[in-house]
């Protein structure tokens, strides 16, 4: 871990710290929401540690609280998390083997993947992925725990514009990857597909369907 620290420049470490902190604050609201919906404190905390994927956890809690079956909530959460499969192929070079593969896979999420993709050199990709991933592994469950303890008095963090931070983090970090024209075409097509199908399909499906946009990059890619 110590050598990972030295690999990255201070500004990048600061950016990662900011994102982890922001996730911790969103975790506060997630914990508070779960408890206010009638869950015992351990539920959001165990989900935060064991699933470690915010969108799926909020969906799970929301479905169960609104009277849905726990297994419907599980299926919905899995659908939302299916995007980690292609993520894993894209960042597998930064995940080692043995226990590193287990922990590295577990801390794979939107933020750690996008920080990895934002770095060019192999050692920096690896450091950015791991520091961000482990940072969120700590901040998210701690946020959920504290938020659950404080409960209803936290209120809605949307008031502070926190809901705008998460998409902006991903957008800012992924921008340099959009220099290639064919990637841009694929991305735009994918985003349009995802947003357009959101009202029609269950959560998770629209984002997966965005991969259809990849056909715009076909050309030189044999058979794909």
């Amino acid at each position, binding site marked *: 871990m110590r050598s990972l620290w030295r690999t990255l420049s201070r500004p990048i470490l600061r950016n990662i710290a900011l994102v982890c902190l922001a996730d911790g604050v969103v975790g506060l609201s997630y914990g508070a929401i779960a408890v206010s919906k009638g869950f015992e404190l351990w*539920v959001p905390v165990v989900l935060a540690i064991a699933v470690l994927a915010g969108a799926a956890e909020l969906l799970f809690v929301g479905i169960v609280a609104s009277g849905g079956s726990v297994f419907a909530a*599980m299926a919905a959460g899995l659908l939302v998390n299916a995007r980690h499969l292609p993520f*894993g192929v894209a960042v597998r070079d930064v995940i080692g083997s043995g226990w590193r593969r287990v922990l590295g896979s577990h801390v794979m999420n939107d933020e750690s993947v996008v920080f990895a993709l934002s770095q060019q050199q192999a050692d920096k990709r690896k450091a950015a992925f791991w520091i961000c991933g482990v940072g969120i592994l700590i901040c998210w469950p701690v946020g959920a725990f504290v938020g659950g303890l404080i409960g209803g008095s936290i209120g809605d963090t949307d008031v502070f514009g926190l809901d705008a931070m998460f998409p902006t983090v*991903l957008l800012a970090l992924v921008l340099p990857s959009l220099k290639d024209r064919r990637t841009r075409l694929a991305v735009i097509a994918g985003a349009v597909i995802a947003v357009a199908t959101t009202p029609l399909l269950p959560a998770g499906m629209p984002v997966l369907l965005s991969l259809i946009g*990849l056909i715009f990059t076909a050309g030189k*890619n044999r058979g794909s």
Partner: protein
Amino acid sequence: MSTLTQLLIAIGGLAIGTFAFRVAGPLLGKNAKSPDGEGEPCAGAEGERRGLPPWLEALMSRGAVVLLIAVVASTALTEEQGFAGIARPAGVLVGGVLAWLKVPFIVVILAAAAVAAGLRLMGVA
């Protein structure tokens, strides 16, 4: 609400299934690795990369970018299958423009939050 046992099974199923999605990519790299790379302890970037053909590697990297932007678009514009309102996408748009202008990351993120919060303060949802 369901029984405690059902809740525990569902949470466990979600955790295990999610882990399976996450670990599949790294495992795929290992299985596809050529036999001479098998003995490597903790294979680094080069060792793991040997597995998939370069075009597939490039396609998967593009796929990750496409997915991430789809997540950006969905979370910025939609909320539970409906429109998320003006404030959030406006904040994300301002942040995106600032990022494109190479403004420091921390300013980009705080500006996005400030625009969304400011609009809400003025009564714009």
